[in-house]
């Protein structure tokens, strides 16, 4: 079938204004939107820039906005668009560096800020014992691939540039609820400020777009509840 793509373009060094390029590519129904982008780039227009790598939803590189919804281009299939025009744009909220590529520096800085590592006492000779029930408390957060779809989709992040954002909070969740970590109280305190967990107003957009089906909003709310428990 033929796919019509309308792709956001902008090179801040060369262009005064943003614009869209239209392309038509041949694609099989079972192919990915990423395959369509690759066909554009390899066969028609090598000036188009976007990120990609693993092409099956584990590396998180190719997060973009497809027909208004943040997603991984490698997880969306041609057949699901029934030949309609597909509009591909960069993730909202972030600064566009070129075409579909956005600046993720602040995104990664925030992940670094939550201290994305285990803080624990000296380890035993073998493994630290952790029951399957305790391991489950980390929940789906361990699936996070840091693709930034959640932040792109979050209306709060879009309005409030100081909001810590769902991805960094999910990373914090993973450590807060890891029974091996000894800094639970400090980590909860770190989340407890107006632009931290409390900025979240339960729009659920992060949960809706998460390509790994992490219940992001629920995890943010669980942190809120945990903070309330410790301060009440």
């Amino acid at each position, binding site marked *: 079938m033929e796919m019509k793509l309308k792709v956001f373009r902008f*090179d801040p*060094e*060369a262009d005064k204004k943003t614009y869209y390029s239209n392309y038509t590519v041949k694609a099989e129904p*079972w192919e990915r939107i990423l395959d369509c982008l690759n066909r554009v*780039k*390899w*066969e028609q*227009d*090598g*000036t188009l*820039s*976007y*990120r*990609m*790598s*693993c*092409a*099956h*939803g*584990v*590396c*998180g*590189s190719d997060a973009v906005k497809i027909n208004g919804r943040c997603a991984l281009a490698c*997880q969306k*299939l041609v057949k699901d668009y029934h030949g309609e025009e597909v509009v591909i744009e960069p993730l909202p909220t972030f600064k566009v*560096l*070129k*075409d579909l*590529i956005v600046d*993720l520096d602040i995104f*990664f800085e925030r992940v*670094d800020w939550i*201290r*994305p*590592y*285990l803080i*624990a006492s000296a*380890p035993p*000779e*073998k*493994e*630290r*014992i*952790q*029951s*399957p029930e*305790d*391991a489950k408390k*980390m929940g789906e957060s*361990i*699936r*996070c*691939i*840091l693709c930034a779809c959640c932040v792109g989709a979050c209306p709060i992040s879009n309005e409030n540039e100081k909001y810590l954002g769902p991805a960094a909070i999910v990373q914090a969740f*993973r*450590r807060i609820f*890891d029974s*091996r*970590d000894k800094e639970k109280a400090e980590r909860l305190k770190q989340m407890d400020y107006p632009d931290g967990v409390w900025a979240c107003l339960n729009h659920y957009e992060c949960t809706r777009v998460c390509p790994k*089906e992490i219940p992001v909003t629920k995890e943010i709310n669980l942190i809120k509840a945990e903070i309330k428990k410790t301060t009440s």
Partner: protein
Amino acid sequence: MELKHDVVIVGAGLAGLRAALEVGDAADVGLISKVFPTRSHSGAAQGGIGAALGNEEPDSWEWHMYDTVKGSDYLADQDAVEILAKDAIRAVYELEHMGVPFNRTPEGKIAQRAFGGHTKNFGEAAIKRACHAADRTGRVILDTLFGEAVRRGIKVYSEFQLLDLVMEANQVAGIVVYELSSGQVRTIKAKCVLLATGGFGKVYKTTSNCFANTGDGVYYAYRAGIPLEDMEFVQFHPTGIYGLGVLITEAARGEGGILRNAEGRRFMEEVAPTIKDLAPRDMVSRAMMTEIREGRGIDRRDFVHLDLTHIGKDRLAEKLSDISSFAKIYLGIDVSTEPIPVNPTCHYMMGGIPTNSDAQVLNEHGQPVTGLYAAGECACISVHGANRLGCNSLVDLVVFGRRAGKKINEDLGDIAWSGAASQAEDRVFDAIARIKDRKKGERTGDIRAAAQQIMTDKCSVFRKEKDLKAALSELRELQERYQEVSIDNLGSRFNTDILEALELESLLGLAEAILVSAMARKESRGAHFREDYPERDDNNWLKHTLIQKTEAEPKIFHKPVTITRFQPKARTY
């Protein structure tokens, strides 16, 4: 602009990160990554990491060593395998201490499961040795090691592409990199360079590898005169999703999955009566291709079925949720009720840059190159020999990544700065200018697709002289055409067009090295199956292949295999 670090590590997957943690406290280290570190391909590893912890049933490192040696078809160097199998245990505990969220046994220990080629008591029956975090083991280890790098404040250069290795005589002087965001070419001077650049599955059309896996580190070492080792050994993973190559982990069979042909028959029962579907990858891949060739592919097409329908929804959700989701997304299949169409997909390169067991790169005389190290898939230590066992790649990365770091710490004080790195970027400037200045020419994508097709058709699971010869001549035509490659994108920001054109030189060079090495080895061993020489020939071929680039034809020579505990014998399961 010139940069300088005592130590430069190229690649921020598991090997690069683990080495960086070792070096980062002791020296000034710069970590170069073609992507963001958390997007490295180690993150795609699914099934597990092998270590004889004995948490589920009694196990020993000797059994792990034996399985690795037998799996390698006796081509692995046994001194290195002994290090791997012994140190795996420490390495997995270390990962747990760093916070890897492993699945747990009811007692709270690290859970283990069965995997291809892992056996108890020297081949008696399958054993549970694979430590895992559901089917995203690589991803969570990658995240954990990256967190540790963050904790240590390691300097990371994200989205910098390696474009050359600078050498002076038998010493490394630094590297040349391309900063993707700006298009700047920079030299980074270093006393020590560790190549941890991963594999190069993109030489093939259907592969489980990511787009970044173009073998830049391996090729630039080859171009700089380092001979490459055992390049003919290319692993095809039996269960790639048909048509896409997306991997369905071997853990699917470890949890009870069964391969079936068009008649519904479990054909692995005949090939490997003891461990059946859990035979090593080379054997399963050949068995599947044989079914397909003899007309027993599903609907007479070129795939078979992987049947997980008897495993149960709960167990699938707990242990195999990612692959269940892949099947749902890409095939619209519910794996708890329908079988998955699979065929072999290019997965792993056993060959690469030759190193000793301290990760020092070896020159054509087998001597270490001063300051140059390699670890991970880009290296050939060799612990995988002719065929790598599942779960041994993650072990390899963390065991030998750490050893590389330790050796660098030890060597650093004795190494003097080399002066050769000045103006090292000229060659890269020229290469970029040649491509950008060419007004009309060949498209990168066309040449790349043709090369991938040739390798897939003529140098995959089965090989023969006639095909390899034809492939080599066709590939050389593509190398000629590559001289005329041109691009659309003449800008400087995020110009992936130019990078893909430069990567293509690596892919074509490595494809040639695979073909020439495969033509030279006139026997069948591990993943290298020659239909015209179907038997393993220990008298003549129990040796490593080395291929070195010269002005004319690449030069082939050999070195012996180190055998310590286990003498070669027939490989049956």
